[in-house]
């Protein structure tokens, strides 16, 4: 799988390169600023890009803007964004095109290599991965607003994991329950929140996030 990496700190760029190589990825470009990233995304046509949001030259959200620009040219170009902080505002912008194949994670998550590599694969295959930190902020707000009052505690856990982009089997492993139990919970959640039912994982994530963003 062909990967472009954009990260301005050498230590992290090198670490990411090694980590992904170890897991069988082919690193076609490892760049350190916004313009170089945009160029690599256009010329290399990677299967997935792992991008730090804050990049030179302006050291603001150059990575995010380069990613959004590349995805306008090539809708659905898989990009996993990493950042020292996560903002629901940025998550909203990334999800706005509803094309999927997007990830938004705290940089800390790299320290859990297994989970991180899984996220890269998930984004490459068109899925949506959202950091638990963003999801928990969305859930805290939705709970305070009373929009998820109808759900049981267990259903709220499942809702959160769905919002992070996890599949039913991943949710069942995480919560130590059977997959059929997860299916039952998701059906109940969708009925209670009056969401359109879909078998497509990505549609499901978007529906849940749209609900939480309300």
């Amino acid at each position: 799988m062909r990967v472009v990496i954009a990260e301005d700190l050498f230590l992290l760029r090198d670490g990411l390169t090694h980590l992904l190589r170890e897991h069988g990825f082919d690193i076609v470009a490892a760049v350190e600023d916004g313009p170089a990233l945009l160029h690599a995304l256009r010329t290399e046509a990677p299967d997935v890009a792992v991008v730090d949001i804050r990049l030179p030259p302006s050291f603001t959200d150059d990575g995010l803007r380069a990613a959004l620009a590349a995805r306008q040219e090539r809708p659905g170009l898989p990009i996993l964004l990493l950042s020292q902080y996560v903002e629901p505002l940025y998550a909203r912008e990334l999800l706005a095109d509803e094309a999927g194949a997007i990830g938004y994670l705290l940089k800390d998550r790299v320290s859990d290599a297994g989970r991180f590599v899984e996220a890269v694969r998930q984004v490459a295959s068109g899925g949506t991965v959202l950091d638990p930190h963003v999801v928990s902020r969305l859930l805290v707000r939705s709970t305070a607003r009373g929009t998820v009052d109808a759900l049981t505690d267990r259903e709220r856990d499942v809702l959160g994991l769905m919002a992070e982009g996890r599949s039913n089997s991943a949710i069942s492993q995480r919560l130590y329950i059977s997959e059929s139990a997860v299916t039952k919970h998701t059906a109940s959640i969708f009925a209670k929140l009056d969401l359109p039912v879909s078998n497509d994982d990505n549609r499901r994530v978007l529906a849940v996030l749209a609900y939480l963003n309300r």
Partner: protein
Amino acid sequence: MTDGTGGGPGIRRLPSRLAAPAEGLSLVGTAIVGWVAVLAVAGAAILIPVGAGVPWFPAAATWLRSLANRSRARADLWFAAAAPNGVAAPEQAAPEQAAPEQAVLGELRQLPPWVARRDGFVGRLLLCRTILTDPAFRAEVLWATIDPLSGAVLAIVPFGLILYGVFGALAQPFLWATIHAFADGNYYAFIHVDSWTNAILAIPLGLAFLALGVWSGPWWLRCHARLTRRLLGAGRAQLARERVELTRRVEQLDGIRTEVTDASAAELRRIERDLHDGAQARLVAMGMSLDAAERQLERDPDSARALLLQARQASSAALADLRDLVRGIHPPVLADRGLPDAVRALALDMVPDVTVDAAIPARLSPPTEAAAYFAVNEVLTNAAKHSGAKRIDVDLRYDAGRLRIEVTDDGSGGADPARGSGLRGIIRRLAAFDGTLALDSPPGGPTTVRMEIPCALSSPKTSSS
């Protein structure tokens, strides 16, 4: 006060009695030149509407001002001559009247010429407006108009007395017969000079006039100086007001400086404490866990694995601490995107529905941005927490050099800045930027908070590395 008097340490030349008549004569000349200047100003002003006066008017006005400034300086000189330490002037008998006035008013201010802020015709037109609306300019026009009628009459008296004295003492004895023959009658003051006896009598009277002219010269010029001061000192009241305003401003800025330095010192202490108790402590714990894991690696791999997990959790927690700290110092969205998006990001964490309407054409300066952000944050938090609002509207607008922020909520109202420390804190912090906060919160709502910060726009992109 001594530097305002003729007896001051060598700053000014002492006006002597003998200089007074000559000075008076030259003041008459000045008055005539001033009249020419005022005619030039009036002529140019009349031509402004047709455009021809636009280049000439500022030049004429500037000329008039330079004349006025010269007269101000001369008026100071003769005014000072009457003060207790000046040369003995006729009015020295009543110096207590002059001295306090001078102590309060000091010297007349030399006014600077007007400067065009822009080039070209428009710049000159604006300059004309500036001049026409300048109260000091109007005072100068008035002064130059009436000076030949009033001031010049006063100034000419010493010279006139001396001339008349010379005429009586030196000319009458030789000319009385001729004058008597041609004129209807020859009077020198009250003496009817129609005989040698009377002509001889006119000599001491002429000498008396001459002496009076010399002796009273400074007094007349002082009268002239008083008149000039009255006419050209129109800006004095304004100067006094400005001084009071400046004093008030210095006091205010002094207070703000104390508050700002205190606040930033407290902020640095808080950051130091947060780092010490948070990230630093967690990194120490992480090092200890890693060290223990290394020692247990051979003997007890399971417990080593548990310790490594602990170390990883400590690293996550340290990162989370640092994130919170950074957010409190300077929120990343604010650095990345500026105020409107940073407020939108805030809105996404608020329980009530928050709409954000923004019209800010470019980035604000980073300190203003941060102050505005934290102020909005505080107001939103207050509204969400205390008013039970369901909906909050935020309006961000930049116009006429001011950032205007309006936050309206549909909550219960009745907010009182005297009671909540939050609003008082915002007012204090905004004061450092000359910003203001107005609260309108009738019982039952709605509550509107209006904040204004005068500021300049900065470039659209700012580096925040």
